[in-house]
């Protein structure tokens, strides 16, 4: 077991290196000099040369990469081109906000998904199955940014129940601030609900079809213990997918955050793209991708801990 964990961790290292290469390389394969993107066109050659030296663009490419990587590992991503504040600070604050949304969205989505999936599987073929399967399918096909707009439409525009945007001020009471969370969290929970719901349904149906479940029932076990057995067997693939979905929520929240103007890492990314703020862009993508890789690593190890067949 420990051997498997160590091996998996070692495998993650080249992937992380590859990720950093991709992030670094993306900026440089883009047509146009990075400097030209930062400087106004009328800047004099001396100023340009100065900026180049300051940013290190005059050094050979692999040197730039190594320097960037070295600093990145220590948390130093430089200053934002837009507002000259340290990138790291902005990123951390933004990440915290996204994290709040992701955790809540995941919790809501996973619980609803597991519920839908279990009910569908246990009442296979009858109307609860059809209803909950339809809900899950809708959850997966729904463009969540559109859903966000629709929710805003009903709850904020037409009926003024909940705030439409933003995160709320620190000065507001907690109850009021929580209102800002409701719509974004519901929106984020839809896709995980759909995805997990479908997987749970398929997995549980698969297990129900296996002989040992019949054997358990024949032994005289009542409903609840059988369900616990099913849950234990269905856990590994579902857990893996949950980890993946959480990663998507963290890394892919940009669309929802844009609609709700939620100051998270997705919003930061959006702004960075439009301001051509390369340091912020690189830092955000790198950190989010790293999170994703580490999350997958954790999920793999957790899966192996539960299901001994996975460890080789």
């Amino acid at each position, binding site marked *: 077991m420990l051997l498997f964990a160590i*091996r998996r961790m*070692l495998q993650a290292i080249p992937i992380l290196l590859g990720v950093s290469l991709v992030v670094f390389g993306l900026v440089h394969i883009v047509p146009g000099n990075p400097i030209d993107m930062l400087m106004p066109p009328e800047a004099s050659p001396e100023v340009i040369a100065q900026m180049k030296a300051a940013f290190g663009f005059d050094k050979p490419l692999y040197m730039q990469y190594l320097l960037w990587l070295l600093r990145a590992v220590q948390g130093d991503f430089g200053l934002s081109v837009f507002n000259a504040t340290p990138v790291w600070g902005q990123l951390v604050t933004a990440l915290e906000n996204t994290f709040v949304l992701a955790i809540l969205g995941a919790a809501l989505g996973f619980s609803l998904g597991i519920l839908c999936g279990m009910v569908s599987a246990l009442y296979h073929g009858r109307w609860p199955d059809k209803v909950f399967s339809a809900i899950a399918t809708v959850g997966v096909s729904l463009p969540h940014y559109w859903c966000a707009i629709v929710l805003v439409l009903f709850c904020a525009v037409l009926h003024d129940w909940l705030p439409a945007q933003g995160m709320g001020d620190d000065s507001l009471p907690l109850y009021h601030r929580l209102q800002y969370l409701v719509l974004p969290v519901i929106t984020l929970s839809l896709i995980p609900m759909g995805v997990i719901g479908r997987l749970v349904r398929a997995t549980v149906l698969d297990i129900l079809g296996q002989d040992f479940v019949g054997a358990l029932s024949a032994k005289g076990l009542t409903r609840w213990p059988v369900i616990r057995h099913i849950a234990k067997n269905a856990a590994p693939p579902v857990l893996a997918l949950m980890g993946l979905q959480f990663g998507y929520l963290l890394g892919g929240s940009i669309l929802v955050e844009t609609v709700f103007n939620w100051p998270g890492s997705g919003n930061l990314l959006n702004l960075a793209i439009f301001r051509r703020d390369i340091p912020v862009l690189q830092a955000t993508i790198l950190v989010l991708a790293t999170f994703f890789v580490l999350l997958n690593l954790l999920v793999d190890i957790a899966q192996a801990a539960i299901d001994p067949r996975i460890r080789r």
Partner: protein
Amino acid sequence: MSTALQQAPRAVDARDRGGPAQPLLIVEHLTKHFPVRGGLLNRRVATVQAVDDISFSVRKGETLGIVGESGCGKSTTARLLMRLLEPDSGSVVFDGDQVGDKRGIAVNDMRRQMQMVFQDSYTSLNPRMTMAESIAYAPRMHGLGRREAYDRAESLLSRVGLNPRQYARRYPHELSGGQRQRVNIARALALQPRLVILDEAVAALDKSVEAQVLNLLTDLKQSLNLTYVFISHDLNVVEYMSDRVMVMYLGRVVEAGPVAEIYRHPRHPYTRALFASKPTLDPDRRTTEMPLTGDPPNPINPPSGCRFRTRCRFAQPRCADSVPALAAPFDGNADPTHLVACLVPEAQSAGAVHHA
């Protein structure tokens, strides 16, 4: 039964190179080990010694039976002969030409003369191809025209007992196991081979269907001048089909010889134990041999020297020191081709098994 047929004069194949005295297949010191990977860096942690230094020959026109329990290396041997697996060492000589050698015969040419029928009749056939397409595939790939290939496929279908008008355009899932296995046999015959390897070809069939397919195989062997290597774990079937038999244990050959001799006077303690495990209702055919003792073999860490020694009640210290070679039995042999791999005379002669 087989011997009677063998005595009829046989037409000589145009591809014959060495005449009737030369064995069609000579296998020498064939070895195949599979690495077991594990540990931190996925290194080779252990080795499965699937086939270890086996040597045998197959005469033209005979049926060589290979028996043994699961894991003894029978199927690996079949795949090594067909070169579906590359041997680690050893050589295969087909009608005088070494396979894979520049001066010998190329693997692809050998495959035109040697074919194989697999155990699972369903997965052996492409589910998306009709029966005629499956049979015609190999000839077409070797350059035969479409019309001729399909004609040959249809004539082969009727040869194996299936009406081509009914079966040529069927798919595998529409046929029964016995019918599919007939198609597999037809497919193996499509390239007009001289040697056919039957790897547990009837193991998955019902008894009545098995009998029909075995009869078909016997007919085909006679009419098409074939040589068979018949692999099976079913001792009765091997006795029915084979002229000579080879017994394998944990990747090695422990006994080989004419079928009647081996079945009547088995010498190797493993062979005797194998026959003792055959159930029979005849009160005259009672055995006095003790059943096998000890743990089932592990091909990853086989015992040193003679691999059967951990389960053999006649084992002596020298059994662990050296690998017993195939040699004549200690009490002399009625047939010079009867060979045993055992160093202990008492082991070879103890407890006769009444069995004919």
